[in-house]
């Protein structure tokens, strides 16, 4: 029997709902992102955004999937990691639906879901994953029953670094895509701190140095160009270290920053050098969205894991390597 899972995602500034079948078909994937007029994401405002747009997005996801609520066999939700208020709003919606529709509830790890939707799309079995977004920068690979974090940022995430820099340069949120466009016009490279420590890295020094370039009057395109080349070069290096160390033969790029074409170009070069296959998760599945939660929910449910409402408190600090992966 084909199962239909409704996945609900709301760990940070985006709220999403998607319907995926147990055959791995994405029937719908609706989302909305909070775009503050100024400044960054405030957790309280983001959670308010989720409760305001949530019901509509879920209704749209059901409609687009051309099913009714009665066809939903299980509800999956992003239990963590993320911003507490956002997680709680999302979990409340999921619990309500699970009780109302009398279907099982499945708790999904947001980071693991990013990897699994990438594996579904790419048909990869066992990749080294570069997961890059506003909140996360991790190099992950499966080993011994868990997704292990081989490397990660020691301070700020790459997406965060790009967005904050964008704000300094007078760009709107999110800054990353605008930085990519500006970088194409840049031809002069300025030295920036290149900070790789084993398979970990650090971006805060680069952010400070880039701000300094701006205050010295260096043109925006040159700053964007230099920041992209340096920060992506660092990612390439730790991805290479992870491939060389684990000897895996697939490289997966996912998360919101996966939409960047220059990063994609660099990492596909890395894969080629190590004779690994490369896949960049397509834009609609790369950012935070409900389809990945739904698909992970199916994997988890089929492996016998669901959660009772009374035990379903959110886990804002749920690490990627904290969950036993029962389906692999």
């Amino acid at each position, binding site marked *: 029997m084909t199962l239909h899972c409704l996945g609900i995602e709301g760990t940070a500034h985006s709220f999403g709902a998607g319907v995926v079948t147990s055959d791995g078909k994405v029937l719908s994937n609706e989302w909305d992102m909070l775009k503050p007029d100024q400044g960054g994401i405030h957790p309280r405002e983001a959670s308010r955004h989720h409760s305001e747009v949530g019901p509509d997005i879920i209704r749209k996801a059901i409609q687009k999937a051309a099913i009714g609520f009665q066809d939903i066999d299980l509800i999956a939700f992003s239990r963590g*990691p993320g911003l507490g208020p956002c997680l709680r709003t999302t979990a409340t919606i999921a619990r309500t639906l699970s009780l109302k529709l009398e279907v099982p509830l499945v708790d999904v790890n947001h980071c693991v879901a990013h990897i699994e939707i990438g594996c579904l799309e790419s048909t990869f079995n066992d990749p080294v994953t570069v997961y890059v977004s506003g*909140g*996360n920068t*991790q190099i992950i*690979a499966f*080993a*011994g029953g*868990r997704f*292990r*974090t*081989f*490397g*990660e*940022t*020691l*301070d700020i*995430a790459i997406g965060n670094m790009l967005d904050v820099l964008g704000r300094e340069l007078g760009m709107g949120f999110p800054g990353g895509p605008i930085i990519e466009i500006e970088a194409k016009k840049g031809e002069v*490279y300025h030295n920036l701190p*290149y900070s*790789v*420590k*084993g*398979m*970990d890295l650090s971006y805060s020094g680069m952010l400070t140095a880039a701000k300094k370039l701006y205050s010295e009057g260096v043109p925006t395109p040159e700053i964007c160009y230099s920041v992209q*080349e*340096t920060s992506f*070069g660092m990612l*390439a*290096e730790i991805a*290479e*270290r992870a*491939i*060389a*160390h684990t000897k895996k033969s697939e490289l997966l790029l996912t998360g919101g920053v996966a939409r960047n074409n220059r990063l994609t*170009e*660099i990492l*596909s*070069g*890395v894969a*080629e*050098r*190590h004779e690994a296959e490369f896949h960049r998760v397509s834009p609609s599945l790369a950012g935070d969205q409900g389809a990945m939660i739904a698909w992970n929910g199916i994997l988890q449910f089929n492996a016998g894991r669901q959660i009772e409402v009374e035990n379903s408190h959110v886990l*804002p*600090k*749920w*690490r990627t*390597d904290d969950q036993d992966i029962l389906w692999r």
Partner: protein
Amino acid sequence: MKEVLARGAESVIYKIEEWGFSFVLKWRQAKPYLLKDIDSHLRKSRTSRECKMLTVSRSLGVPTPAVYSVDLDKHMIMMDFISGTQFKQLAGQVSRSDLISLCRGFGKLIALLHEGNVVHGDPTTSNIIVDDRSRMWIVDFGLSEMNATLEMKGVDLHLIHRALETTHWDLQETMLDSTLEGYVDVLGSTAEPTLSRMKEIRERGRYH
């Protein structure tokens, strides 16, 4: 005769035979997907750094391959070939007591570096070679640095912790404990600030 021993993250390692002896040739190839300015700077600085730090580390009592020649334009280093097994591979094969004594040895070598204010920069079990007489050698000094601060030493220990939890997850506690024991054996109470910095750095990562 030239045989590819390993294709590392930033280099290709060849084994060559000359004058009846075996040597390693480490070649940092160009990476066409990186910006040329960055790539050539990294290749050059890491090649020269590695040569220097292999020697500096040996002067601190840490067994490292001796360097015979270096070509900074081609980014190549010719050094001793160490006949042995990567610690990474050995860890799962030896008895518990052998594992403990190897880890203590590993910790001692890292302590000797830190005592001389040197950090390795990538202290994974892939970069430790155990030779036929159970002697441990450290290789791959491309990320190594001198004049190390407390923070840099803390990062070095943090990287050991990370390497153990990702690569030796089923043995990680035994391995971490005995590695740190070896570390403290050498440094005594002066190890304390570095150990607490290691924990602090780990908690700076996401979701701890």
